[in-house]
């Protein structure tokens, strides 16, 4: 058993493969989660996100490759999970026990005085009022929150959450995100699998995008956006004239009508845009709209996951 290494990254995955017979659920994934990251593990359903998280939690063994959490192998001993908590798929509890007893049971299995945190974590997830009710009668959202409470009992430095907002109503989603935000602000490293782009967009600083078990992108969310480049939308009183102005304008490229008839163009920085607005006014094509259109995460996501599919085909 390796000793805890304070310098080791919270998650380090190298060449990870999980095969079920002919099905390759996770295919040669490499990723590193640094301290303080809110790391989005993004991909369509069935991309192997949950399988990867299960391996990080030591629930299943990799077919090949390595998983290290804080430098330790979770497949060898649960001692590797010290400071690590989370859940895969929906968190599950004993339906015939009440919420508090479920947490007390898990705290007993954690040791290290986790039982003293039961009331505090119930309060954190706003379940104190329902703590004496059987979990069998809890709504999906309450179970998700109890799942977070169960994770917090372990005083985690790394929180692994699998689709934490899935199945929640809009208010539940908002609360869940606020809670994750708050935990991350307190310095917790969070790995968050999701197929909800807005969730990742709102919470994460770094992302890995997976598709059919393979990773298609890993890095800063901001870099991903930058790589995709900024486009502008342009509407004028005379679009034909505007297009010809754009064609002769330095620093402006790829001006063309988009699907909705609105002109889209690329610009080399703010100055080129400012110069364009002057030229348009001078030509008599008066500007109705000239606005940056950042590539949404959704655009990028589809480009990466479906584009890759088109390339492969």
């Amino acid at each position, binding site marked *: 058993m390796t000793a805890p290494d304070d310098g080791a990254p919270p998650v380090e995955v190298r060449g990870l493969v999980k095969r079920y017979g002919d099905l390759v659920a996770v295919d040669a994934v490499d990723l590193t989660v640094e301290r303080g990251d809110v790391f989005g593990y993004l991909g369509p359903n069935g991309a192997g996100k949950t399988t990867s998280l299960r391996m990080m939690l030591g*629930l299943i063994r990799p077919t090949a490759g390595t998983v290290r959490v804080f430098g330790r192998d979770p497949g060898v001993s649960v001692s590797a999970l010290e400071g690590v908590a989370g859940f895969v798929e929906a968190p599950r509890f004993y339906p015939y026990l009440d919420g508090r007893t479920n947490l007390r049971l898990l705290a007993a299995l954690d*040791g290290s005085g986790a039982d003293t945190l039961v009331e505090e974590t119930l309060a954190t997830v706003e379940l104190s009022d329902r703590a004496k009710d059987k979990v069998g009668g809890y709504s999906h959202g309450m179970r998700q929150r109890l799942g977070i409470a169960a994770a917090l009992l372990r005083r985690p430095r790394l929180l692994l959450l699998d689709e934490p907002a899935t199945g929640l109503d809009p208010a539940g989603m908002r609360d869940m995100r606020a809670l994750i935000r708050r935990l991350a602000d307190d310095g917790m490293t969070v790995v968050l699998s999701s197929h909800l782009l807005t969730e990742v967009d709102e919470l994460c600083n770094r992302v890995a995008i997976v598709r059919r078990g393979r990773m298609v992108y890993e890095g800063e969310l901001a870099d991903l956006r930058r790589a995709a480049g900024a486009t502008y939308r342009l509407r004028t009183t005379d679009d034909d004239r505007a297009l010809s102005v754009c064609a002769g304008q330095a620093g402006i490229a790829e001006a063309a009508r988009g699907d909705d008839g609105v002109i889209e163009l690329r610009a080399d920085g703010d100055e080129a845009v400012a110069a364009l607005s002057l030229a348009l006014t001078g030509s008599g094509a008066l500007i109705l709209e000239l606005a940056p259109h950042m590539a949404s995460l959704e655009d990028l996501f589809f480009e990466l996951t479906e584009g890759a599919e088109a390339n492969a085909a």
Partner: protein
Amino acid sequence: MTRRPGARTVYRWELRKLRSQKRTYLGLGAAILVPSIFVIAVAIQGGKAEDVPFGRYIDTTGLAIPLVMLLFGSIWFFPLITALVAGDIVANEDQNGTLKTILTRSVERHHVYIGKVLAALTYAITAIVLAGVVATGLGVIVSGFEPITSLSGTIVQPGRGLALVGASHLAYLMPIIAIASIGLLFSTIFRNSAAAVVGTLMFSLLLQLVTIIPGLDGLRPYLLSTQFDAWQGLLRTPVDWAPMVRAAWVCALYAVPALAAGLIVFVRRDVAGG
């Protein structure tokens, strides 16, 4: 660093879980109800069960009643009560998805398994003891605390008779523990509670059928079902220890590999469900 919780913590909480589950009370309730009905039938009809040992004494001494219960119960009643929890205790968590919940805490998998084994055995032992106490208590009320005739034809005084009834139940625990061990193995590999409970009961019944097949009669002393009769050696004068000794090692031959296999599967398996 504080010591990590182990099998004892798991055991304590497994008992707590059993106390909150209907299934537990179904088993323990049956362990109380069936001997009660049996005693009431004896009281009302004054009937006898001439074809089994001690059957003819059930209306002359209450001590015969728990012994007749042991005989009838070995066919399927006590194996079923045992399998009800042993077959469920791992598979239930698989089906509920709670296995992943407890296996991502700070208890090693083998400690989880040992805690579950101990809890399933505790329940099985409780059920047998409960059935024995109820059968003896009600039996004595209905048929009296009278001397009992041993299998050798000697008269045994009620005090010693009661001790022998107690000892018989202890001897009965050997095959019960073996059945529980097989139930635990099935519970671990089938991942389905109903399949494991039925499988355990089927296993127990099939072993009894083996002896019907011509030429296999020689296997009889080594079958699990035969060990349910080992306690009868205690009710001979002098006591015949041979069946008890054989029961001890034959039951161990069933129980130990089953428990070991269950442990290995549990520790190594992927927890992919839930």
